[in-house]
């Protein structure tokens, strides 16, 4: 049985109440899809690993702060946060580490097996399945074509037999849906 957003929130609520193992369970459920998302976008496994750690540490800061609402869609929150951290990394040339510093997480050290694991994660179809769970099919189609397969709008529109403007809106709405999941 796959975890739902409701289950995820229950895990995070339990973690907030003090059951730290629940955050571990949440991490086990979702680290693959976040790692798959990141591993497709960076050349260096070390960077993907750092971004993965920072993404989950950032979520932990939310969980540990009782004044903040938990995300309505925790997986959506993770994906949007991972993407924002990735963009920040491109802008600044380095991976943010504020959340990891906050929790004194050990630096990520990778051996050959870890690097192979990350490379494999980049080929994993788990990411696509999760995106389709989160979004209406039209939006998921457009988002995966644009963001995952990295096709341009003209090609996507041609395949979908519709206009580029429609595809742009679908992609924009898909991202907005994921972003809205972070808002709460």
């Amino acid at each position, binding site marked *: 049985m796959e975890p739902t957003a409701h289950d995820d929130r229950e895990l995070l609520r339990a973690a907030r109440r003090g059951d730290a193992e629940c955050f571990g369970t949440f991490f086990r459920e979702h680290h693959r899809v976040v790692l798959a998302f990141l591993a497709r976008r960076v050349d260096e496994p070390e960077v993907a690993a750092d971004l993965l750690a920072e993404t989950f540490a950032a979520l932990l800061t*939310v969980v540990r702060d009782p004044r903040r609402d938990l995300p309505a869609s925790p997986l959506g929150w993770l994906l949007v946060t991972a993407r*924002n951290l990735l963009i920040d990394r491109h802008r600044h040339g380095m991976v943010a580490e504020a959340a990891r510093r906050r929790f004194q997480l050990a630096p990520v050290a990778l051996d050959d097996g870890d690097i192979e694991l990350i490379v494999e994660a980049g080929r994993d179809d788990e990411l696509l399945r999760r995106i389709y769970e989160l979004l209406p099919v039209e939006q998921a189609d457009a988002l995966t074509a644009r963001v995952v397969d*990295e096709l341009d709008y003209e090609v996507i529109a041609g395949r979908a037999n519709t206009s580029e403007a429609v595809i742009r809106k679908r992609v924009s709405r898909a991202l907005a849906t994921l972003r809205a999941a972070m808002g709460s």
Partner: protein
Amino acid sequence: MSTFIDRLETDLVRACDAPVATRRSWPAPLQSLSRRGRLRMLAVLTAVAAIATPAIAIGVAPILRDFFGQPVSTTADAPPAEQLALLGILRDPPPGASADPAMLGSSILPGIHGVRMNYIRLLPPAPGFPHQLLYTATSGDLGVGDPPAGADPAIEAKNLICVEEVEASGAGGDCTETSVLTSGHWLESAGLDGYGLVPDGVATVILRYSDHPAQTETVTDNTFSWQGYPAPAGPITGNAGQPSPGPTPEIPISITWLDSNGKVLSTHTNANAVS
């Protein structure tokens, strides 16, 4: 044999389980000091803070907090003349809306000090950036990343210009020195959408890319925005010096500023976008 995933999970569970007070790390500048040295430094800092208190509007409600829930100091002082001269939106009365400081909530970036409470502005909304606030701060620790061994990771910068997306849970926003604004590099991106900040006198911007036609955007209240466009084939990677090509689709390779008469004021190249 454990993988880095196993180790990361163990670390996260430990961090989740630990009392917050014992998780709080020493400020970066204190990390290299001995325990006695830290205590001595803290005593000095405490004394300095007590002396400086009258200059800081600590009692102003609401108390602002950063992303990690720590209180952020505030001030009733005005921004420096340089910032007021550059950003019309900061001046009184602002062309746009002023914002209740409470809107900043707990979204302030960690390490920011002296938020100027009377100069918080609601920026014009744009797709992907519906609730952005601009504020300035007297200083902030911009030290991030991996400094060389032995180097001080903290970089205390003065007179910061900050923009926070108050509905994004801590992932959006940036604080930079004023020079970043004048350099033409004040750009934010989220997903396929972008948002920029420019000084007074800039009426239009032209965003240029290596692989498709330029975009022209109008400036409103020192801001402009742009939306997704056909990205090049290939991976969304690309960082200066890395072998894999391809600019990040949100970031133009250059931006040209024009005044209200269409005269080119300046063109700024973005070193982070690979052509």
